[in-house]
């Protein structure tokens, strides 16, 4: 934290300015009310809700199958993991067994999604700091993931590609070869990003010791996903509460040490490698068998409630669903969006930093406003 006192001959005045909601670095419609002392941020109040569509309310009036499509529209750059969290919640309410083949396909899809989401994050984060080349590189590789998704389910952004009980379609012939080829390409590109950023003096100056948060603070304020792990907290839903086929996968959870913006970058960069490792294992190990479990035609779970969390690219994505047992729509549908909980830590991160660092810190927590506002 910078706490240099102003020189005695100058009088400084607090200034309140709005950053956003139409600001290119806010990644959507986020408005920050910044209280400034010169160029230092004294306080920050994020104003959200500009993208609120009432998805929770809407879902309580749609049937269980229609909601899958709504979950696509929350974190719209990681639709597959949103689908996954939702369908698993309903499967848990039903205590429904999902075939192993479907669980493997889901694992491949959700890790591909993580790679795509992290690529977009890497590109935009670097572009916010002035490194435009990385944005082009990131979008270039993300295109390959979108092609794989398009071949699997026909869509490139909002996939709607999971069903309660299993997968709607089987993998196309030859798809696994293409996924493996993509893994090789992606792995060969990672040194390119590292060359541009990891040792880059400007990038390091802009990110090291910026937005430091200790492990205890990070847990208390509810950080999740890579920002939490960058503070050195071993917490990954894939390891702690395994779902899909993650209990059969071998992978490591990268941890940071200092909990600053640079560590959050390093953690995500290592997550690329771990994701590729999981994709390779899963796509080569897809077992034979059915892709759809014994799900009833009309989804009407027994009365009960459950909370189920998965590790989305942004962090712990939780669904809390209450079924009354009589209706085809959930009685209560609640999403615990990782972006909202990460954004909540932003005021704590930016306090004492320069206005220019606010841009870096919005980037580092990797928010998608569609998910924050729902």
């Amino acid at each position, binding site marked *: 934290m910078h706490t240099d006192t102003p020189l005695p001959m100058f009088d400084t005045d607090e200034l309140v300015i709005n950053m956003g909601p139409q600001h290119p670095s806010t990644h959507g419609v986020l408005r920050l009310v910044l209280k400034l002392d010169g160029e230092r941020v004294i306080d920050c109040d994020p104003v*959200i*809700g500009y993208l*609120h569509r*009432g998805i*929770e*309310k*809407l879902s309580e*009036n749609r049937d269980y199958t229609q909601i899958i499509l709504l979950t696509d529209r929350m974190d719209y750059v990681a639709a597959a993991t949103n689908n996954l969290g939702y369908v698993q919640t309903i499967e*848990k*309410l039903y*205590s429904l067994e999902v075939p192993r083949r479907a669980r493997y396909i889901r694992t491949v899809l959700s890790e591909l999604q993580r790679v795509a989401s992290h690529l977009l994050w890497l590109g935009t984060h670097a572009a916010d700091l002035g490194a435009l080349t990385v944005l082009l590189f990131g979008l270039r590789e993300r295109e390959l993931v979108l092609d794989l998704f398009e071949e699997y389910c026909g869509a490139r952004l909002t996939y709607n590609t999971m069903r309660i009980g299993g997968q709607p379609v089987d993998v196309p012939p030859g798809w696994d070869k293409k996924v493996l080829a993509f893994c090789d390409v992606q792995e060969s590109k990672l040194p390119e990003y590292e060359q541009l950023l990891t040792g880059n003096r400007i990038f390091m100056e802009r990110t090291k010791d910026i937005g430091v948060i200790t492990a205890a603070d990070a*847990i*208390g*304020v*509810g950080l999740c996903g890579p920002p939490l792990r960058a503070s050195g*907290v*071993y*917490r990954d839903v894939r390891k*702690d*509460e395994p779902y899909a086929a993650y209990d059969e996968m071998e992978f490591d959870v990268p941890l940071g040490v200092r909990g600053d913006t640079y560590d959050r970058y390093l953690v995500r960069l290592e997550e690329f490698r771990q994701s590729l490792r999981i994709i390779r294992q899963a796509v080569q190990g897809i077992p034979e068998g059915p892709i759809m479990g014994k799900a009833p035609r009309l989804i009407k779970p027994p*009365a*009960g*409630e*459950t*909370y189920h*969390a998965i590790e989305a690219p942004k962090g*712990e994505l*939780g669904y*809390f669903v*209450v*079924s*009354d*047992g*009589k*209706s085809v729509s959930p*009685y*209560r549908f*609640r999403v*615990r969006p990782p972006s*909202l*909980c990460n954004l*909540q830590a932003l005021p704590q991160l930016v306090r004492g930093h320069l206005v220019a660092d606010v841009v870096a810190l919005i980037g580092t927590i990797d928010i998608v406003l569609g998910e924050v*506002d*729902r």
Partner: protein
Amino acid sequence: MSEGPKPAPESKPEAKAAPPKPQPKPEAKAAAPPLPPDQAPPADLALPAFVAALQSGVAGAVEQVSYWVGDWTVIVAAERFAEVCTFLRDTPGCQFDYLSDLTAVDWPARAGKRFDLVASLYSIRLRHRVRVKARVAEDEAVSSVTGVWPAANWLEREVYDMFGVTFTGHPDLRRLLMPLDWQGHPQRKDYPLEGPGELLMESPQDWLKARQAAAEVGVK
């Protein structure tokens, strides 16, 4: 061999009778409004240690324990909600240091206590979960848990915004998602899902009253 001329296609008899017109389903008579499904745990399942610790540690706070598909829920008195949360965070063997989620459920049919305040807790150290529930009346204020987990700040704001549950001791209880001058609380079950434009957008409460008045005199 040459094929003979094909017989002229016979005029097909009426393939099948026209499908019966879909009858408009009689409007389902008002089913009994649902009540929360708080299932008792099966008798052969041992209580987890943290529930037992809570029962003995905060005497009389736990009103009910429920279990469903692997999730444990303790239902506590609303006025002791914060006390229970503090206990669950600080006691060895519980150590619920992470507030995953805090939300509410509206049960308008339940007499007296209309809302369920639901906190999903997780222990990063011990890797277990529990849900803490408190039944809250419409005009009842719950003491805030922002002092226990700072993460509760926005989540409580959202509960206040969407349900109108108020929290005492919250540092900054404003609406989170809806505009600050919004009327009504959208996630309540009696809040309309859609309606005729302007009046609904401008003042949903007035629209709601008009609709209820219309329903009472039997005008649709």
